[in-house]
């Protein structure tokens, strides 16, 4: 039995050895906003924050999380970035979008007014096959409305 703190709520769960954080979130806690698109840390779709730092939950073992606070897209539902993404049309199929927003939220937390270069640097680990990148850049540039 391990304890996991997600979006400000504490959970106890049975986790077999080898359980990833993404599996724990999706399968044990039903938080399916976190998507898994490659399962091996190459695409960024599964991005969540640990104490505010974006990490890849599909290659993070849930037993290594410890007391760190997990923030998923469900915990960012009211973040202004969500509306900024929709306003800028920064999503098409939407499968990578939760991961994009979690990454962007971590960026604007430390750099509230990021430049285009900073956005491109911080977000280059989040792949989008629909090609919404120009809209994502616009959404993050204008996230404060």
């Amino acid at each position, binding site marked *: 039995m391990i304890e996991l703190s997600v979006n400000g709520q504490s959970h106890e769960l049975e986790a077999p050895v080898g359980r990833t954080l993404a599996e724990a979130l999706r399968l044990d806690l039903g938080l399916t906003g976190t998507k898994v698109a490659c399962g091996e840390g*190459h695409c960024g779709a599964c991005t969540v924050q640990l104490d505010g730092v974006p990490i890849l939950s599909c290659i993070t073992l849930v037993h290594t999380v410890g007391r760190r606070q997990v923030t998923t*897209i469900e915990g960012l539902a009211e973040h202004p970035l969500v509306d900024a993404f929709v306003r800028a049309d920064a999503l098409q199929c*939407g499968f990578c979008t939760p991961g994009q927003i979690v990454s962007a939220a971590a960026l604007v937390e430390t750099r509230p007014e990021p430049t285009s270069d900073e956005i491109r640097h911080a977000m280059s680990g989040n792949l989008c096959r629909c090609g919404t990148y120009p809209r994502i850049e616009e959404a993050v540039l204008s996230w404060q409305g």
Partner: protein
Amino acid sequence: MARLIRTEKEVEGRYSEQWIVVEEDVLEQWPAGPRGIVGRPARRLDGLERARGQAVYTADFSPPGMLHSAVLRSPHARARVKNLDLTRARTAAGVRGAIGPEDCHVLVREPSFQGAPVAAVAADSAERAKEALELVEIEWEVLEPLLDPDEAVRRESFVDEPRYYTRGDIDRGLAEADVVVEGEYRTQTVLHNAMETHQSVCRWEGDTLEIYTSTQYIWGVRDEVADALALPRDKVRVVCNFMGGGFGAKNSPGDYTFIAVALAGQTGAPVHCALSRREENVASGNRNSTIQRLVAGARADGTLTALSGEYVNAIGWYGFSGPTYGPMEMLYDCENVRTTSYGAKLNSPPNAAFRAPGFVEGTFGLECILDELAAKLDLDPLELRRRNHADHDLVEGRPFSSKNLLDCYEMAEPHWERREAVRARSDDVWKRGVGLASQVWYGGGGPPSYAWIRVGSDGRAAVVTAMQDIGTGTRTVMAQIAAEELGVPLSHVRVELGDSARGPFATLSAGSSTTPSMGPAVRAAAADAKRQIIEIAAQRYELEERVLDIKDGEVISADGGSWPLEEVTGLLGDAQILGKGARGPNPTGMRVLTFGIQVAEVAIDIETGEVRVERIAAIHDVGRIINPLGAQSQVEGGIIQGLGHTLSEERLLDPQTGATLTQTLDSYKLPTIADVPEIVCEFVDKPDEHLTNLGSKGLGEPPIIPTAAAIANAIRDATGAEIHSLPITREEMLRALREAEERRRAREQVGAAQA
């Protein structure tokens, strides 16, 4: 009135004759230009749901008791199963079912490409299922694979009949030419890599088979599954409310659906079958590689006299030959054209439609050789294209329903005129240049397609149709059309789609056909509902129907009266108005096509071969634009996929074994946000007056078509190097630069000798 017609139906350039029940399209088109809602930017109706991670994709759907599956796929490109024993796998902990070639028709004993499915298991968890695969006892006889497309042509190993096309007289055309250029062009195999992999959850509910699947065509999945399993079509229900991208690879049920169905049948439980990313990159379809041997001839004034192309499409074990020849036959006014097309059958994974299949590849070759011709003729490439503009369709001798390519050329001028300034920003290392390429594609859509609209007593409307929104934003476009016609705010319309049991037939989301097929049906349904509301209002207020209209949520009369819509619809109580609409036929005897041009600006590091695309301007002619915001996203997305195709993406096969070497997203290089240039997007935005009650064509595919050629032509402009092969890796770039340098030296030597 319903009318039965025999008509031509086109999907991605493949035509078929069929009987279709249509209804007359009696509505006049709206005037050109933005209206209250149509033609104005609209946010995605489902944007918040998707952005917040609340949208439930097939990957997120998990009914109680659902089992997970794993598929044993052939590691060999060609082999025979000598012995297969599932006993140990079937009895392993947590395993509930196991199937082999005897249990499911998609499982094979003689795999003919790496990744062909052989056996599958269902277990309580995905881990258990994967572990159980290790317990499958299998003995292989490995056979020699056929992997070389030219060799396949020599052996006449084809997936379909070779295609030969001739118009005019190619020899006469070449004799009349002042300049002739020849070249061999190659395009690589690329992979769709939608973020949500191919997957289905299947379960039996009573005597009905339910399939929750990530698909571009719920009706196609329904029909194919029903036919394969000899079930009445009505007993198969297909659901896809949200899906994570397709790009052409998700038009059919796929092996995973049939495997899930078979395992659900064996276990009596719902079964999820999802491809892993690695399986996705091996066995879920691809844009096949091509070899194109081209000849182009022109008079000194630029008039094209001859175009000839031999296209070898390396299809794989099965699949279809895309119309790689299409651009050569359709784009220019050239009397003498000859094309030959082969679909090489190989021991490599089958292709699948990928965003403008054939035309992306064929446009690269054609538009590059056209620029070589322009260079030889010392003609401006844009002027060369203008001089060969086709004012009617030369393949079928028909007029176009509309064509505004010359407008596109005019709108391209300001971007094209930047080339002096762009070149002037070159230095010793970075050379800069500008290139362009034209584009033609289908995208007219067609019948049959149907929609209903339900209006309740609260005056709110629901569009009901069993289409799917694969991320292109069609849900929003349909709501805009319905709101515009009904005269209600966009926020009062919702769209219920994605369920074959809960709406009328709708077309597939492929071939740039969803908006031009579904849009007119939705408008017709909205008009039908509006007519019924006005009938009720006329009786309630004792006015003639012809003086009444609905605008901005109010019923208004010609003499200035106005009543809130809810006051009229409130009379319904719990009842509802149902409007029905159908897509009318396409204009008889006309060719419906889409056109465009892109202008690319590039910088090349001539020391390292690095290519940076700095700006792309895209001008497309697709009739009326419904949602300018979503349309811009489609163009940007197409260009960015085109950028990957041009510069970084390549599926590599081991030439000895036929094994895919690029199975992960760190070896298969998709574009990232850091790779994206400035993109300028413009539309002609003139409704096609002959096409439906909307005048809109499709936009999903056109933007990816000219990108590679525009970039390659810009590289020529910058450096003189001729690109003949995609992707333009650093090696390819350096090779082309060396070749250009050798050509320059040879010319100098000839010049010196003559002096």
